[in-house]
């Protein structure tokens, strides 16, 4: 019996969300006594053995042509085959772009119950019940999984990473099984930006900034905080900022430790994408902006004055 964790590799690097999923698996394995096994597919520059320090006991590394590194259906078949061989009862993915492709395909092959967007350890007192985020972050649902094999995707930033003592043995095997029917033509990398869904801090701005030329101060603040940039829907729709920065109900949903909203009124559709943030700071000159109701800290003031001061204050703290 085992718990199988999918190790997400992007551009040769192991993702932080994978450390969260391994930590989740390690806590579960401590209760069930099952072996915690990791599966990595594709070229990886990082040291896989080091993942033992998060609790993995064994790692299966499946080699793959480096030019075709994006996850594909073949990967799901390989994961399912490994799960059968290792008698895995629970398979864990991050609720990331890769997880959204692979988890349902793997669950289908294993005829497993699938719960995505999980935010807590299962309650095992009466079956296997997990909590997941629903209604765009406005509520949670407790879901019982009824099948002997289970597939979970864990929401990024929802489970703490824990360091442990341990090493994992890595076995290398070749990718087998039918060729993927989807032919990869090209891969375009977005340069070095932190993926929004995984950023610990997100700085976001809205129409209150009046125009795209005013984003410099927002970028400086984000740079000082090592934060990812985001924006509201009207800003993306007006092409002031790229669409992938749009957070909200119909954009990206995020749950960072800190969300800083500048010149965003906080319409319900925007809140739906950010209300799982641990701490929300709102900077808006309108004291009636609905966002203040959802905020932990607020400044009623002119963004053009407050934001540069914010950056300066951070610099000062860092210098001292």
């Amino acid at each position, binding site marked *: 019996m085992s718990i199988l964790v999918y190790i997400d590799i992007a551009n040769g690097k192991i993702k932080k969300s994978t450390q969260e999923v391994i930590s989740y698996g390690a806590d579960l394995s401590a209760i069930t006594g099952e072996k915690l096994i990791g599966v990595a597919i594709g070229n990886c520059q990082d040291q896989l053995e080091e993942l033992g320090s998060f609790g993995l006991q064994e790692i299966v590394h499946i080699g793959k042509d480096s030019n075709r590194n994006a996850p594909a*259906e073949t990967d799901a078949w390989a994961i399912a085959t490994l799960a059968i061989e290792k008698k895995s009862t629970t398979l864990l993915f991050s609720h990331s772009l890769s997880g959204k492709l692979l988890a349902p395909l793997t669950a289908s092959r294993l005829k497993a119950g699938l719960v995505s967007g999980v935010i807590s350890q299962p309650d095992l007192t009466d079956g296997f019940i997990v909590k997941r985020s629903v209604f765009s972050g*406005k509520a949670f649902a407790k879901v019982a999984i009824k099948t002997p094999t289970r597939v979970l995707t864990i929401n990024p930033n929802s489970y703490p990473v824990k360091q442990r003592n341990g090493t994992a043995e890595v076995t290398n095997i070749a990718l087998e099984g039918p060729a993927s029917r989807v032919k990869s033509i090209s891969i375009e990398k977005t340069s070095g930006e932190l993926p929004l869904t995984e950023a610990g801090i997100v700085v976001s701005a809205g129409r209150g900034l009046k125009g795209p030329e005013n984003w410099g101060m927002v970028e400086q603040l984000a740079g000082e905080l090592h934060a990812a940039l985001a924006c509201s829907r009207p800003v993306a729709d007006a092409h002031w900022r790229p669409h992938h920065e749009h957070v909200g109900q119909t954009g990206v949903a995020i749950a960072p430790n800190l969300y800083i909203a500048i010149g965003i009124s906080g319409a319900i559709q925007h809140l739906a994408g950010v209300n799982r943030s641990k701490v929300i700071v709102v900077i808006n000159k309108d004291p009636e902006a609905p966002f203040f109701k959802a905020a*932990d800290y607020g*400044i009623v003031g002119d963004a053009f004055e407050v934001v540069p001061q914010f950056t300066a204050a951070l610099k000062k703290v860092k210098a001292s």
Partner: protein
Amino acid sequence: MKILVCISKTPDTTAKIAFTDNNTKFDTNGVQWIVNPWDEWFALVRAIELKEADPSITLHLITVGESDADPIIRKALALGGDEAIRINASPAESQFVAHQIAAIAKEGNYDLVLTGKETIDHNGSTVGGLIAGETELPYISLATKLDRQGNTLTITREIEGGQEVCEVEIPVVVSAQKGMAEARIPNMRGIMAARTKPLKVVEPIATNEYTQVIQFELPAPKSGVKLIAPDQVEELVRLLHEEAKVI
């Protein structure tokens, strides 16, 4: 070419989220229902565009829901599509929904099954992949662009750290997101035409129960905002560092 677009009925984006029956049921009191935006704006509109470019395409819509889903499927038909199928059952879980749609997709020999990337109520992002699994068709997730040349589709999809352009022969299952198309507003002619388009009601096939929602929970209310004067930004930095411990 035959296209099947999956449509889900969801509460309006501004709906108040509350629960009844000891937090086991969504409180539908006063809730406005809409076509799930991801299904409507991206999956459906792109399918309509494909049909506009090639009128020989057959475009069907499908939903899993009880009769209260009829107005929603008619709303979707007002945008376009030849006819709709409703599987007469409550969409209790994603595996159930996927099995129902997969059965129709196989029986009807559809060449392209399109879903939105997720619904705004369950946020699962799983149904497309599960349909692909059940039908044993290739699956392309989170597509931002889809072009057709005969039986070959060229699709751009979002992957970790970038995007991938891929090519696939039909039949295929694709989940659609932002970028695929621009949202449309139905016109009067579309709304009138939707009234008389065929809506076929089909009874569900039997499936196993995979998961079951036991209870809902609302997040703990925020304790209220702590306001800081605009000339006290250093105090905000101190609070974020010492009190909230997030920087």
